[in-house]
C-alpha cells in the first residue's frame, strides 16, 4: 500500500466513523437529541478522531523510525500500512461502542483537540530543541579548536585558508546590531505610520489596495533587494551622501543595506500593526474623540497603547528578519568585518558569515567552517535576550482594554 492509499483508507474510515457515530447517538435516544449530553456531531467527531489519530500517529512514528520513502520495501515499512488500517478500524469500533446518551463526547473531543493544540505548540519547542542541538555539538567542536574568549571578545575577523585565522565575532556582532538598527529605523516609523494611516485615515478602498500592495514588498526575493542595493542605492548613497560629507567612498555600506532592508521590512510592521490597531474597540476612540482630542492624539494616546503588544510583536518580527537576512547584507553592506561608527562604511553581519562559512570552500572540520555553528549559537542566545526584554516591556506597559 502506498502512503496515499493508506491515508485515504484512514481518512475514509474516519469519515465513516463520523457518520456512524452521529447516527448511533441519534438512534440511542430515538431522535430526541436533547437527552444526549453532547450533540450528535460531537459523538461523530469523537469516533472519527479515534479512528484517525492513532493510525496517523503510528504512521508518523513509523516514518521517523524507518525511511518513509514511498515504495520502500523493507519489512517494517510494508507492515506499517496494514497495521495502521487495522488500528483505524479498531478505533472506529471502540468509538462506536463508547457512545451512550450520558457520554461526555464534547468534553472528550475537546480534550483530544486540546492535546492536539499542545502537540502543535510542542513542535515549536521541538524545533528550538533541534536547532540548539544541531548547533551545540558542532559549536563544542569549534571551541575545542579555537579559544572561546578569542571568539567572543576578539575584534578581528580574518578567516584564512589552512589555519591562522582570527575569528573574533565582535565586528560581526557590531555589524549585525548596526545594520538591524538602521533597518528598524527605516521600517518601524514607516511601517507604523503606514499602519496608522491605513486603519485610521484611509478609505476602505485605499486600504484594500495599499495593504496587499505593501505586502508585496515582503514577497520580493531578497536577491532583488540585494541587487537594488548594490546597483542603485549603494552608488546613490556614496555619491550624494558619503562623498560630499567626506565619510568615505564605499559603494557598499551599512546605510545602504539598512535602508534597503528597512524597505523590505515595512510590511512586517505595517500589516500586522494595522490588524491589531483595527481590533482596538471603536468605543475607545469615541471616548477620546468625545473629549475633543484630534484623531492623531486619539491614536497616540489611546489606540497605540492599547495595541502595544501586537505592535511590539510586529517590530520584533521585523527585527528578527533583519537579524536573519543574508542577501541584502552581502550585496548591500559588503563583506568587511569591522567595527566602525561610520554608517557609510562596509560592514557585515553574523548571519552573512554563518552562510558564508557554512557554504564555503573550507574543510568541514576546520574552525573556519565550525565557527558558523558557534556564531549561530551566539546569535540564538543574543536574540533570546532581546525577546525576554520585549516580553518584559509588553507585560509592563500592556493596556488591556475592557
Amino acid at each position: 500500500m502506498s502512503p496515499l492509499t493508506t491515508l485515504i483508507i484512514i481518512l475514509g474510515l474516519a469519515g465513516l466513523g463520523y457518520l456512524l457515530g452521529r447516527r448511533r447517538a441519534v438512534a440511542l435516544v430515538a431522535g430526541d437529541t436533547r437527552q444526549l449530553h453532547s450533540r450528535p456531531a460531537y459523538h461523530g467527531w469523537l469516533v472519527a478522531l479515534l479512528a484517525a489519530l492513532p493510525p496517523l500517529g503510528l504512521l508518523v512514528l513509523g516514518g521517523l523510525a524507518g525511511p518513509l520513502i514511498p515504495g520502500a520495501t523493507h519489512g517494517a515499512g510494508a507492515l506499517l500500512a496494514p497495521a495502521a488500517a487495522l488500528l483505524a478500524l479498531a478505533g472506529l469500533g471502540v468509538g462506536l461502542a463508547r457512545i451512550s446518551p450520558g457520554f461526555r463526547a464534547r468534553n472528550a473531543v475537546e480534550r483530544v483537540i486540546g492535546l492536539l493544540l499542545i502537540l502543535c505548540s510542542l513542535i515549536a519547542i521541538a524545533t528550538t530543541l533541534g536547532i540548539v542541538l544541531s548547533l551545540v555539538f558542532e559549536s563544542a567542536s569549534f571551541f575545542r579548536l579555537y579559544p572561546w574568549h578569542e571568539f567572543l571578545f576578539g575584534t578581528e575577523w580574518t578567516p584564512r585558508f589552512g589555519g591562522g585565522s582570527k575569528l573574533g565575532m565582535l565586528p560581526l556582532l557590531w555589524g549585525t546590531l548596526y545594520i538591524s538598527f538602521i533597518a528598524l529605523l527605516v521600517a518601524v516609523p514607516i511601517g507604523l505610520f503606514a499602519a496608522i494611516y491605513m486603519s485610521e485615515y484611509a478609505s476602505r478602498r485605499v486600504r484594500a489596495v495599499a495593504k496587499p500592495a505593501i505586502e508585496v514588498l515582503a514577497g520580493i526575493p531578497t536577491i532583488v533587494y540585494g541587487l537594488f542595493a548594490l546597483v542603485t542605492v549603494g552608488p546613490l548613497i556614496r555619491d550624494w551622501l558619503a562623498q560630499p560629507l567626506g565619510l568615505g567612498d564605499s559603494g557598499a555600506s551599512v546605510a545602504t543595506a539598512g535602508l534597503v532592508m528597512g524597505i523590505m521590512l515595512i510590511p512586517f510592521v505595517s500589516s500586522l500593526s494595522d490588524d491589531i490597531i483595527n481590533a482596538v474597540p471603536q468605543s475607545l476612540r469615541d471616548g477620546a474623540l468625545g473629549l475633543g482630542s484630534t484623531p492623531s492624539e486619539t491614536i497616540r494616546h489611546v489606540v497605540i497603547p492599547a495595541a502595544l503588544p501586537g505592535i511590539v510583536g510586529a517590530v520584533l518580527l521585523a527585527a528578527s528578519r533583519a537579524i536573519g537576512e543574508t542577501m541584502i547584507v552581502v550585496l548591500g553592506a559588503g563583506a568587511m568585518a569591522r567595527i566602525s561608527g561610520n554608517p557609510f562604511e562596509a560592514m557585515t553581519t553574523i548571519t552573512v558569515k554563518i552562510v558564508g562559512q557554512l557554504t564555503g570552500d573550507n574543510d568541514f572540520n576546520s574552525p573556519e567552517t565550525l565557527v558558523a555553528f558557534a556564531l549561530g549559537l551566539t546569535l540564538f542566545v543574543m536574540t533570546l535576550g532581546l525577546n525576554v526584554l520585549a516580553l518584559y516591556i509588553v507585560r509592563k506597559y500592556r493596556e488591556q482594554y475592557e
Partner: protein
Amino acid sequence: MNQMTQAERSVQTETRDVKFECRDVQVWYGEKHALKDVGVDILDKTVTAFIGPSGCGKSTFLRCLNRMNDTIAAARVGGQMLLDGEDIYDPRVDPVQLRARVGMVFQKPNPFPKSIYDNVAYGPRIHGLAPTRADLDAVVEKSLRRAALWDDVKDRLGETGTSLSGGQQQRLCIARAIATSPEVLLMDEPCSALDPIATAQIEELIDELRDRYSVVIVTHSMQQAARVSQKTAFFHLGHLVEYASTDDIFTSPKDPRTESYITGRIG
C-alpha cells in the same frame, strides 16, 4: 438641590439664549432612516432631557450634536445644526474644537485602559487646561469628587479604569467629561448603572453645571427627567414628537403619543 420647585425653574427658562438650533435634522444609517426632520432649540444654562422608547434615536441625535456620528462610516447626517448660530456641519468647522466645547458621556461606559488618574487627566492634558502637575491633581480630584467617585477610588488612582465596577466606570466617564469643562455636556443615560445615592449626586452635579453650561441628558426615567430638566424632548420612532418645558410635557402633553408614553410609566 431638589428643593427648588418646578415653577421656579420654568420661569428662569425663558430668559436663556439658544445654544443649539437644530432644523430638519435627518440621520441615515445606510438605508435606515433613523432620525427624521428633527427640529429643536437647546437653550443655554438649561438642562434638556431627551426621553423616548429604546431605539427611537435619542443617542443618534445626541451624537449629532458633537459630530460623533462622523466616526460611524454608515451614518449620514442632513439638516442644519447651529451652535451659537454657527453651523457645526460647516466644512470649515473643526470637529475637534466643537467636541472640546460639547462634551459627551457615552451610553456604554468606555474608560480608557489607563489608570483612573490618566483617564480623568486626559482631557485637561490635551487641552492644556492644567499647566502644572499640582493643577492637574486638583482638576482630577475635583472632577472625581463631583462625579461622586472620589471616595471609591482615592486610594487606587493608579489602577486601570477598566477594573472598576460598571457604575464606577460610568462615573469615571462623567468625571472625565467634566474635567475639560465643556460649554455643553451631552450625557447619554449617565445614571443607568448607578444606585440611588450616586444618582442623586450626579443629578446634583447636573444642577450645578446648569449655572454655567448647557446640559443635555438622555434618560429613561421620567422621574429623573422631571427632577433635573427644564426642557424635555420626546422622541418616537425617529421623530421628535414633542418638545416643551418639562412641566408642560409631564402635566399637559400635546401629543397623544407623548401622553401614552408618560402615563405608561411604571412606579
